[in-house]
């Protein structure tokens, strides 16, 4: 697939990194020559230096035969203009843009064919915010991922002593929770994936991925570990785009939120914008400030600045001072596992990981609605819509056990007419089902894509 990425910032370069291995032709455009050179040295892609919305630059980047244009520069306006130019001059079929300003996002009608032709809008900060909010809602989970508009969730939990299922075989889950349907999609033990079978025994420290309807998540989680008390008091460190959105969303949901930001001016504007959040100008690693604001009574401390080291250190300090749980935003991929395995920090969130999925959904062949990238991109969870019939599709009309799934792939659930069906080996897939799959090994992605592509005889 031919793809142009406009903007070589954090989002742009991490998308390039993720997709370049999948036999995609990627051209990346930016005004910063040094950054481009660095990317080109590291990855197999083409770079163009220049203003991303100028027609000649887009032409040079090969916009004529590009399949996808991904506008993720820093400026909403440049992104919009680039999509407009690509549509008018080069008829690029798929145009995806990052739009940050809420003022634009509140009026989706401006992004139509007749106005500003953008096919899909991504808002990375919003995705990361939603992601963290999910974690705050389920404080015991490592990851909470939505499918089918939130009907189904995929949750990653670390098994601990105290969970009734720990030390037992998986099939006993049915006896423990007779009325609840769930499916364990994968288990990671010491960073190695295990395909779960009925006789797999869950051990302490296993990372368990399970799929269940949203209302059942808490019950299933309680099988694997003693549940944490619901979160009430939250301290956010860093009032950037993510901190600001998170605070706004949390304060409207009856959480008690405090927000620390070291930039006095920004703190002032945050205090003016936020209604109930207590805004504290100051250093998130200032012991005095944390003590005065009752860090020891805090349920979760989230370090959300764009400085990895500051996030790690301030959350370690918060943990040491008595915060029940700490969450840290970490951009550098290599830090994520390092931090999480050290045990000092409960949850490490990688914004790129959280965001990349929403882009992948557009890049994947077949009718893919949602993609979540897991475990540093090694694994992937996909929501795809099955089309066609038993003669044109390799999935529709077949029971799960008859579908030739690639190794390491499980079908966890199906959403049919907004109803959640947890799959068993004899569940039959019908046309227009939303199928939720879990791939332990992303290299098998093309095989999965083929399952959900309708063969040409369909047309």
């Amino acid at each position, binding site marked *: 697939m031919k793809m142009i990425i406009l903007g070589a910032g954090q989002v742009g370069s991490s998308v390039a990194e993720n997709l370049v291995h999948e036999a995609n032709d990627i051209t990346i455009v930016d005004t910063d020559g040094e950054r481009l050179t660095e990317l080109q040295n590291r990855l197999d892609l083409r770079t163009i230096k220049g203003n991303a919305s100028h027609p000649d630059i887009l032409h040079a980047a090969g916009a004529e035969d590009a399949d996808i244009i991904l506008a993720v520069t820093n400026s909403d306006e440049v992104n919009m203009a680039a999509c407009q130019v690509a549509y008018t001059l080069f008829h690029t079929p798929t145009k995806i843009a990052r739009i940050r300003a809420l003022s634009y996002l509140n009026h989706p009608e401006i992004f139509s064919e007749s106005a500003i032709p953008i096919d899909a809008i991504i808002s990375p900060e919003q995705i990361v915010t939603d992601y963290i909010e999910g974690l705050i809602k389920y404080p015991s989970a490592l990851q909470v991922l939505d499918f089918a508009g939130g009907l189904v969730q995929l949750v990653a939990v670390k098994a601990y002593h105290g969970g009734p299922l720990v030390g037992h075989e998986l099939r006993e889950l049915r006896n423990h929770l007779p009325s609840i349907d769930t499916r364990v999609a994968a288990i990671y033990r010491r960073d190695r994936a295990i395909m779960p079978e009925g006789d797999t025994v869950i051990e302490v420290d296993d990372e368990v991925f399970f799929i269940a309807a949203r209302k059942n998540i808490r019950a299933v989680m309680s099988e694997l570990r003693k549940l944490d008390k619901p979160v009430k008091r939250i301290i956010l460190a860093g009032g950037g785009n993510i901190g600001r959105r998170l605070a706004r969303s949390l304060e409207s949901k009856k959480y008690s939120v405090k927000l620390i930001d070291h930039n006095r001016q920004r703190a002032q504007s945050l205090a003016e914008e936020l209604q109930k959040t207590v805004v*504290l100008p*100051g250093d998130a690693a200032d012991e005095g400030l944390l003590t*005065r604001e009752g860090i020891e009574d805090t349920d979760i401390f989230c370090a959300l600045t764009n400085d990895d080291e500051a996030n790690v250190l301030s959350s370690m300090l918060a943990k040491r001072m008595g915060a029940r749980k700490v969450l840290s935003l970490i951009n550098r991929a290599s830090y994520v596992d390092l931090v999480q395995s050290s045990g000092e920090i409960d949850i490490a969130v990688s914004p790129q990981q959280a965001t990349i999925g929403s882009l992948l959904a557009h890049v994947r062949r077949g009718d893919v609605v949602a993609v979540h990238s897991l475990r540093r991109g090694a694994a992937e969870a996909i929501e795809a819509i099955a089309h066609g019939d038993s003669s044109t599709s390799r999935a529709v009309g077949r029971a799960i056990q008859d579908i030739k799934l690639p190794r390491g792939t499980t079908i966890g659930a199906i959403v049919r007419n907004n109803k959640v069906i947890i799959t068993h080996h004899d569940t039959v897939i019908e046309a227009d089902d939303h199928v939720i799959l879990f791939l332990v090994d992303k290299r098998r992605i093309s095989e999965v894509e083929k399952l959900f592509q309708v063969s040409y005889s369909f047309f």
Partner: protein
Amino acid sequence: MRYIVIQRITGLLLILFSSTLLPPIIVSYGYGDGALKAFLSAFSITFIVGLILFLPVYMKKQDIRLREGFIIVTLFWTLLALVGSLPFAIAEHPHMAFTDAFFESMSGLTTTGATVLTGIDELPQSIRYYRQQLQWLGGMGIVVLAVAVMPMLGVGGMQLYRAETPGPMKDNKLTPRITETAKALWYIYLGLTVACALSYWLAGMTPFDAIGHSFSTIAIGGFSTHDQNIGYFNNVTIEMVGIVFMILAGINFALHFISWRERNLSPYFVDAEVKTYLSLLLIISVIVITVLWNEGTYQTMQETLHHGIFQAVSIGTTTGFTTSGFYWWPLFLPVLLITASFIGGCAGSTAGGMKVIRALLLYKQGRREILRLIHPDALFPIKVGGKPMEDRVISAVWGFFALYVFSYAALSLIMVSTGNDLVTAFSAVAACLNNLGPGLGGVSTDYAGLTDTGKWVLSAAMLLGRLELFTLLVLFTPAFWRG
């Protein structure tokens, strides 16, 4: 300072005001009540004085500057009270002394509603009408009216408008042009008045009374064409109509304008000031009713309810209508109501007092200090309806509050020093400064018993309250005259 500009505009305003004497002339002619001569001479004097001021400089078209705006407004209000008192003084009946006539006229124009007259029912019809009309003209502000009908004021209109309209935030224009804003305000004012008059009429008043009372209701004045005030009618429906229109008139007219333009009632429900205003009125009503009922002041619950609510709204909005002597109620209630009148109505309404928005800002400031004790490092901007307020506005509110309290204390002391008892002195100053009307003690029904000095002090208090201190007090600073 360019005195020519001041002279020209003042002359113009007087000519405009003289035309407002035409309706009483018609009334007097129609009823043949014998006051025709008084009104005709008042009209000619005002008109000629205006002409004398205006004609020599009518070609000197210059824009009004900020400072001249303050002088013009204050000067004009004083002159207005002066020429407004002419009919009272000239007419054979009541034929008031100069001090009394001035007090009555000032009380009318500032929508206070304090009166020195007794036996109002026996006065000539035209005089009774004229008192009501004075209140109506003063309610929205005759300078605002001038801005609306005299486009030649141009840029200067804004300076005048700012000096006369109440509330801490005066730069919010409803429309791009100040003339249009002033017109819009007057249309709403007129519309409310017509609606109110019709409702009163349907509720059982005579057309004469209906028009007269609609004037003083929408202006939040409190004058009545009867000695017994609204109590004269002894009609619950009339009281209900009065309650509704007093509440409406106490709401910011900008909100009326926006909701009328958008044909939508939602602006009322999202406005923080209106919400506070209505809650305050509700709380006060509940307290009044509870105490009245517990003390057994009235025999039946129905009586307790309508007297309680009417009086709470009337005093709470600083109108000052009375149905029964609320000063005979258990002492706590009159004091509570007079205290409530310090808050008054919303900014940009015709109500007096310090205005709800200022009380709200003061309260939020107080709350912020308490929060600061709990979170010493946190930032707490003052917000109203979710929007942060500028520090400039907040400090202006503090300044206003300080001056208000100071003026209240100083004027009360002067009143005490001229031989009034404490209750009379303090309640009279509160009633005049808040443009309320009825006080307690010696001034509970009328102000006739006061000394002349007392009446002059209170006239000054009324003007201070109507022009919200700053416009008047700025003239007493040396820096104003120097620069």
